[in-house]
């Protein structure tokens, strides 16, 4: 029963990661300077957070 519980919790967390990533990234990008998001590899976190 125990490993099954861990597996299910991990599955839920994984789906949540997939689902929330775009929204979280959107929020993160909103704090970047203009053009900062258009580089490769795409930045996950703003270098110089700005409003």
């Amino acid at each position, binding site marked *: 029963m125990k490993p099954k*519980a861990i597996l299910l*919790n991990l599955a*839920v967390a994984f*789906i949540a990661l997939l689902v929330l*990533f*775009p929204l979280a990234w959107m929020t993160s990008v909103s704090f970047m300077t203009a053009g900062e998001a258009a580089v*490769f590899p*795409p930045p996950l976190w703003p270098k110089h957070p700005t409003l």
Partner: protein
Amino acid sequence: MSGGILTRRKERAGWLFVAPALIAIAVFFCIPVISALFLSLTDFDIYALADLDNLRFIGVQNYERLLTNPLFWGAMKNTALFSVIGVPLSIAASLGAAVILNARVVKWRPIWRVMFFAPYVTTLVATAVLWNYLLHTKYGVINWALQGVGLPAVDWLGQPQTSIPAILMFVVWKIFGYNMLIFLAVLQTVPDDLYEAARIDGAGPWTQFKQVTLPAIAPTLLLVSIISVAGFFQLFAEPYVMTQGGPAQSTVTVLYFMYEEGFKWWNLGSASAVAFILFLCIFAVTLVQLAVAKRLGGDQ
């Protein structure tokens, strides 16, 4: 005698009570639908907008012209593709998430539920623009992840073969939370005794799902599939924001075609005809779904 008067009075009161709703339905539903039907039998275009004298009654010519228009059939084909892939995919995603989330052993279930529902309540256009960035060929996070595991980058929205799957990824991500809630609600009504009995009889998780869960949620599954089909047939904003129907018209849906016909070329009569054909298609598919459900239900 007095009883008859009383019933008549009660009847009148009843009509009065439902009158506001009936008036609203008549004004906002019946009249527009009937005028649209009339519109679809005329050549209402930009000249008729300027001067109503230019309006001519042309019978079913709009329909005849549409049925010989390859662009219309292309839109029908694209819509069919969207629905055939999208409806099972979105239902599977919703059902899978609901079944996992319904397990007792999962912790913080209300929090996960809110998280899974979050995409559904965010603005469609904002998330569509966001997904355009995620799907970007050069700077997109999705291609970055693909390259990270050694796969080649894909020009998601730039080629006809991948534009429909790319938009479907976005659509499923956006809407699966809603159906998940419906499934969660009905899963919670399945009595635990049934699962217990199945376990005692030696049923594994898959057999339990097939023999206990599926029959219990069958009516809901039918409802969700009917709503999903109607929803996918009316796909419009996603291709409008993400691809403008391109590349090579591969994401022009029927509704997008109708929008262009009506508000780009101002052939409002023809656009109304498209709307009625789409309505008939949705109606026909719903009837088929109901018949299939009846057949399947009769077997058990």
